[in-house]
């Protein structure tokens, strides 16, 4: 079955996740705690920005209105970005950044694996095959750091615990399927995120146990990103991201 134009919003959800998290990681450039992490954070950012680029190009083609990858990445209103709230959270300290990465990668690695194996959309399956390998690395890298920091010094353990309390409430949205996502699931493009919950829970539980971290009890999960209801940090992120395209409209760079 050919992927329909009606699936564009679901693809944009994933593309926006990749763009916004890639952008956040790129903010670290020049400011990482250790030179090796300069390399690793940039690498992970590059992976995500590369995935975003491929997804926007695909979405633009499906949409058929002549919107380029850059039109989609740079020229929408805040309300039209449909990334989950987790990825737009500010970097905070290194504990926040690595935990955010762990939460996201622990979801995306199996997600891409399923897309690669089962998607009816050959382009998406192709993007997924590469992305799965990349996210497996992110998962390993972020997991190792969460363990180091969780089971490191008193200070690093405290910071790790703070990050978990802060960020865990944004993980519920990973498993929610918007109407657009439900359509893509029904069309066989994407896996049902709910079906990945068991694996995600197990991954996080393993890392937390080794990190001697307590799983925070969160009663109310935050949501809204998929509807374009973002937190206050998002506008500032977009102000930077979109600066050149807004200040000099319609030019080639």
């Amino acid at each position, binding site marked *: 079955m050919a992927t329909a134009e009606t699936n564009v919003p679901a693809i944009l959800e994933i593309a926006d996740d990749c*763009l916004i998290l890639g*952008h956040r990681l*790129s*903010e670290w*450039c*020049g*400011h*990482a*705690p*250790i*030179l*090796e*992490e*300069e*390399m690793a954070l*940039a*690498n992970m*950012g*590059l992976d995500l*920005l*590369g995935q*975003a*680029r491929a997804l*926007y190009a695909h979405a633009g083609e499906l949409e058929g209105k002549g919107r380029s*990858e*850059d039109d989609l*990445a*740079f020229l929408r209103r805040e309300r039209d970005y449909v990334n989950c709230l987790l990825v737009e959270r500010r970097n905070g*300290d*290194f504990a926040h950044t690595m935990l955010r990465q762990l939460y996201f990668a622990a979801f995306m690695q199996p997600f891409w694996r399923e897309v690669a194996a089962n998607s009816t959309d050959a382009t998406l399956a192709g993007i997924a095959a590469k992305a799965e390998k990349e996210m497996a690395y992110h998962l390993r890298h972020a997991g190792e750091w969460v*363990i*180091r*920091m969780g*089971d*490191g*010094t008193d*200070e*690093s353990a405290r*910071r790790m615990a703070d990050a978990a309390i802060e960020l865990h409430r944004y993980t519920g949205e990973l498993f929610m399927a918007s109407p657009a996502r439900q359509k893509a699931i029904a069309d066989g493009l994407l896996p049902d995120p709910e079906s990945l919950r068991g694996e995600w829970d197990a991954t996080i539980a393993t890392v937390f146990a080794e990190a001697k971290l307590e799983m925070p009890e969160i009663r109310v999960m935050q949501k809204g990103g998929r509807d374009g209801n973002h937190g206050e940090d998002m506008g500032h992120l977009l102000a*930077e*991201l979109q*600066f*050149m*395209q807004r200040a*000099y409209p319609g*030019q*080639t*760079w």
Partner: protein
Amino acid sequence: MYSQGLIGADSSTTESEEFLAAFQARIDREEKIEPNDPMPEGYRRTLVRQIGQHAHSEIVGMLPEGNWITRAPSLRRKIALLAKVQDEGGHGLYLYSAAETLGVSREQMTEELLSGKAKYSSIFNYPTPTWADIGAIGWLVDGAAIMNQIPLCRCSFGPYARAMIRVCKEESFHQRQGYEIMMTLARGSEEQKQMAQEALNRWWWPSLMMFGPHDSDSTHGDQSMKWKIKRFSNDELRQKFITATVPQAEYLGLTVPDPDLKWNEETKLYDHGEIDWAEFKAVVSGNGQMNRDRIRDRNKAWDDGAWVREAALVHAQKRADKQHIAREAAE
């Protein structure tokens, strides 16, 4: 990226005539000197200083360009810039490793950078106010660095020479991406052209200063040349750079901001106007627009990351202890 402007190492050395003659004979036979080989103390000191400055330049150099990653104008440019700045960090890593073969640790070198004791290339003490500065840095600053680093691939110290081979390949890619940014701007709208011209105006003279003082005023060149750490003089490299770059500017339709620049049919080189050495000295000695900001940013990253590095060490120790206990229990 780096150039040979401010080495200033003390190459004085106290070994016997015989030792120095034998060492010089190896150099003259173009043999590579390796870390465990006997070498004059002055040779070692010069290299530690030079490779350290080179490494610091790569690391501090991440900041002016990093300034534009979050504002890059397209996805393609954003990815290319992030990858480029990551390369610079990678160069820093190789170079610190090359210096470590001479018995100085990365931590020691980092401390000297953060305290302001160690120098880095002064070019990074200029700001990057516009996107065009990213093009100009790639084109001119990386271009100048390549002029210096190509001969370093034949440097007599093996680890440095080998590191330079990969670094040069990457720098040459950076230079082309910088030039391509300039080309896109130069062929763009009036405001893009103006942005490109202004960036050229800002970066031209500082790029020429990257090659260091005139040979007549340079005190440390001779011994480095003799030891084949350095292969060309400051002025020779500066001339090569000007000769290569002026036609590139013409091709872009941009004007090099030097009214005295003209082709000399006799020397087959460009004559150029007087370099403002007072500005050079001011920036080298800490009074450029961005000197304080650069060092403050590096210190902040280092201080903010202290707890992360400590956690990694403590965790590694815990892990080693656990393995040790497990091994003992098994025995």
